[in-house]
């Protein structure tokens, strides 16, 4: 018994770095992703598949926009708002961008305080992140309402130009908004787990027997940053182009 434990005290060999490390990791006949909890590796693989979904949307948007013979509605004017009697181009989208980036910042700090096991600050930061995410979805609902009711934009056509504008817009922003909404729900769930102390006491989650720990805050963070990342691309190629 004593012997068995004593043999375990030897420090593991250092892992090779660089390209040699890649080969060693992948050919090690063990898990390929060292120093990474499997939940995190799986989240990365899910995000990779989600990248392909969003890329398919954005690339099909590119093809319909390049191939239409009708003029494309100018997003700068479509998404302008009149504030204080002055028409400011694209201002709503700019504010939404800043809201989402801010939520990414608070999320990154929540991960840091989570690993420090600072329950209160992690909880507060997660709630701020969720609130900013909900604000973003709210502004998107306002934007959709304005486009549908005031501008008469429909998925099958609109009075401003190319019919594809509506279908692409509702498809891409709708899919992204759904991601944000799901993220807000999970942020609240993780925040509750943090403040209840589930992660400190290693209580299992409701769908798993796996012991809870602060890695789930980082995994949640990966998803949330990805949502922000997708918005970076949508903002650039749909709203600014």
């Amino acid at each position, binding site marked *: 018994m004593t012997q068995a434990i004593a043999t375990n005290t030897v420090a593991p060999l250092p892992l090779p770095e660089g390209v040699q*490390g890649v080969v060693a990791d992948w050919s090690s006949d063990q898990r390929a992703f060292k*120093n990474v909890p499997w939940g995190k590796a799986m989240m990365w693989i899910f995000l990779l598949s989600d990248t392909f979904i969003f890329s398919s949307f954005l690339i099909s948007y590119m093809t319909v926009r390049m191939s239409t013979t009708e003029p494309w509605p100018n997003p700068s004017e479509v998404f302008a708002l009149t504030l204080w009697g002055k028409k400011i181009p694209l201002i709503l989208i*700019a504010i939404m961008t*800043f809201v989402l980036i801010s939520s990414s910042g608070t999320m990154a700090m929540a991960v840091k305080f989570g690993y420090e096991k600072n329950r209160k600050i992690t909880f507060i930061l997660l709630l701020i992140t969720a609130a900013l995410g909900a604000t973003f979805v709210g502004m998107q609902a306002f934007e959709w309402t304005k486009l549908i009711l005031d501008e008469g934009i429909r998925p099958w056509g609109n009075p401003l130009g190319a019919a594809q504008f509506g279908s692409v817009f509702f498809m891409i922003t709708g899919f992204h908004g759904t991601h944000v909404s799901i993220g807000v729900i999970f942020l609240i769930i993780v925040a509750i787990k943090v403040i209840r102390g589930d992660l400190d006491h290693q209580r299992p989650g409701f769908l798993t027997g796996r012991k809870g720990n602060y*890695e789930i805050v980082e995994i949640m963070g990966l998803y949330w940053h*990805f949502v922000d990342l997708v918005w970076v691309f949508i903002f650039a190629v749909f709203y600014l182009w």
Partner: protein
Amino acid sequence: MAHAEAQQHDTQGHQHAHAQGQQHPIGIYLKIWGLLFVLSTASYLVDYFHFQGYLRWFLIIVFMLLKAGLIVAVFMHMMWERLALMYAILVPTVLLMVLLGIGALEADYTFFTRGVFFVKGLL
């Protein structure tokens, strides 16, 4: 005694392994946050000042890639991960460039045929 010592060793090793798990000073997050704000403002200004043509597209893509890079590298901790994970996630996205190229070719062709068959006065 040996048991207790081994256990202590084990917990230390365990804590050490945990300390390795993505802990970085708060300053770097705040700096990147600020940088993302600056880059977003810059890309908004591209529209505000009505830059057009290649300059507009160039600036939009540069700001987009810088922002994406900062988010993935720092906020998602990719720059501190092992190369095996980095390659597994980042290399497949390069394949999307192929899809992008095919899409562009197809769109050009569709635009050309629409021009030939749909636009009045050409035939």
